[in-house]
Structure formats: C-alpha cells, structure tokens
C-alpha cells in the first residue's frame, strides 16, 4: 500500500493502475493518466459491464459543450457501466488545462490523456469508421459490440436510451 502511494507522489501526473483501471473506480476529480497506444488497447475492452468512452480535448468546442451531459450520465449510471474519458490534448497540458477543465466540470470519470507519435494507428485501433475528428463517443456492450457511436456532440436521449437497452438485457443474453 505504501509503495503505490509513494510512487504516486513522485509522479503526480500518473495514477497507478490496478489490473483494470476502469472498474467503476471514480478517481479524484482532475487526475489525468498519461497513456500511449499500448495503454489505450486494454481500455477499449469491456470487462463485465457496458463500456462508455469519450474522446475529447480542451481545444474542441463541442467537446467542452457536451461535457456537462457526460458528467450527468456518469452520475446516473455509476456502478452500472464503466465510463472513461480520453483527452487528446498536448501532453504539456496534462497537469494544467486538462485537469483544470475536469475540475470545473466536476468530472469523476477515470480520465486519460493519449500521447502517441502515431495518431493514425490509435485512430484505427479505436474505430475503422473514425477519421480522428473530435468529439467521439463510443458505447460498447459487454460483448464488445458497438451499441452507439457518435462523432460529434452526443445526443443525450439517444445515448441514454441505448444505455437503458443494454442494461435491460437479461443476463447471458446478448
């Protein structure tokens, strides 16, 4: 227990990850974890619950506009889904602009910042239908199938309807 805390103090921009950091663990508001493409891969796989991922950046106006809705969704579905955000801001903003915005939004979803020299590979990894434009929100069912994908501001009621559909499914039936 002491070792992870000590490392966390030495490297404040990183949060030490458990085996799967997205297991419904709400992180302290504003904490942002740096990931590369290898860190992104496991985040894209659901683990026992529907998985909602939002790709955003502080420089993206529609991303900022929709964030309050995302925070509402997080509160409404906490514990029933895994929800995380991935910022595409410059790595230089990981301890400044990005956490500042997340704190303003009172966001508690696990927050990551993707830093990679090969954005094209990262984009292809996330979705073959994505050109890299932000925002992007994807909802995966427990089986990994895409239940909702939106390139642009989310449609709140469309997304929540899809979430409700996924959560209403009887156990074991996809």
């Amino acid at each position, binding site marked *: 227990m002491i070792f992870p805390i000590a490392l966390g103090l030495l490297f404040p921009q990183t949060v030490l990850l458990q085996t799967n950091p997205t297991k419904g663990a709400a992180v302290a508001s504003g904490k942002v974890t740096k990931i590369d493409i290898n860190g992104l891969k496991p985040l894209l796989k659901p683990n026992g619950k529907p998985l909602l991922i939002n790709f955003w950046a502080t*420089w993206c106006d529609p991303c900022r506009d929709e964030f309050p809705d995302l925070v509402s969704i997080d509160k409404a579905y906490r514990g029933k889904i895994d929800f995380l955000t991935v910022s*595409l801001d410059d790595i230089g903003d990981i301890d400044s602009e990005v956490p500042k915005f997340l704190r303003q939004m009172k966001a508690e979803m696990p927050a990551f910042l993707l830093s990679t*020299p090969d*954005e*094209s590979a990262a984009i292809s990894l996330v979705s073959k239908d994505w050109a*890299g*434009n*932000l925002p992007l929100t994807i909802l995966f069912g427990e089986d990994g199938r895409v239940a909702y994908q939106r390139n642009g501001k989310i449609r709140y009621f469309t997304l929540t309807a899809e979430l409700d559909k996924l959560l209403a499914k009887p156990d074991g039936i996809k």
Partner: protein
Amino acid sequence: MKRAVFLFTVFFAFALAANAQGLAIGAAMENFSLPDLDGQTQTLSGLTGKNGAVVVFLSAQCPVVKSYNERINQIAAEYAAKGITFIGINSNATEDLAWVKSDAAKVGYKFPLLIDKGNVLADKLAANATPEVFFVDSKGVLLYHGAIDNDRSGRKITEQYLRTAFDSTLSGKPIERKTAQAFGCTIKRVGQ
C-alpha cells in the same frame, strides 16, 4: 420493365454507397465548382497546378487548424513553385462568410479559400476533420489523403506525410504512405 427498374435501383444504391464512402486512393475527384471569398466561382481544374493540387479542409475556429496555418502557408509557398497548388475549403455551417474572410485575412492564406455551403463537397469526399488534406495529381486522381504531418504542435514532427507524398510524386516514385489520420476538429455540418 421490372428488370430495368431493378437494375436502376441496384445501380443507384451502389452510386449512393460510393458517395457515402468518400474518395478512394486512385479515384478521380469530381471537378467541383465553388465560390471563393469574393463570390467568384472557381473549379478544381482551374486551380490545379501542373503537378497537382491539395484540397485542404480548414476552419476559422479550430485551434488545430490555427496551429497548422503557418506550416500550411510554408508548404503551399514552397510547392507552388514546383507546380502543386493548394485549395482551401471551408465547409463549416457555423462559420459565416464574414468570419471566414476576416480569419483568412489575418492568417494570410497564400492560396484561394472556397466556401462549401451545405458541406456538399465535404460529404462527397467524406471529409470529417480540419485540417484534412486530399492531394490529387494534375488529372484530379487522389494520391494521398489525411493528415499533413504527425504532430499538431509542430514541435515534434517525425513524419511529414504530405511533403513526403509531394516529393515522391515529383521524383516519379510511388507514394509509400497514401493515408494517415490525425486528431482534429469535426467539420460542423448542417443540421448536426
């Protein structure tokens, strides 16, 4: 008669599907006509240089475009002398003509900027981000599509996708990397 209707329907469906998918590498871009900032109609063929053209989707608002503007101007100036021209396109429904003109004047684009009202061209090419480039040869055939380079900030560029595509083409060599994507702003389409 029924067979003719069936065949037409199938053909139309394929045409729609082709449009929905954008422009493939090796396919010819339509010779589009769009107004410039002074309202004068310009065409792809009229603006293409002897060694090709780059159609680049831009935005007056997008911070990613702002970080690329200087580089775009530098590349445009450098390669204009080598017969490759740039054609800027603004398809954003949220950016009116006055704003686009004012921004263009501040940036000092070294090439024409055309207004794609109703995002018609963006839809035909399936362009989604700004900036996003389509490099075509002198006949309008698409040679490279996607990102200009691999770093938004410009400080850590390790892959000059567009310049490399230009240099390969100018030296008669095939372009090794024909597509590359990067994170950018969404084109603000009508109704979205």
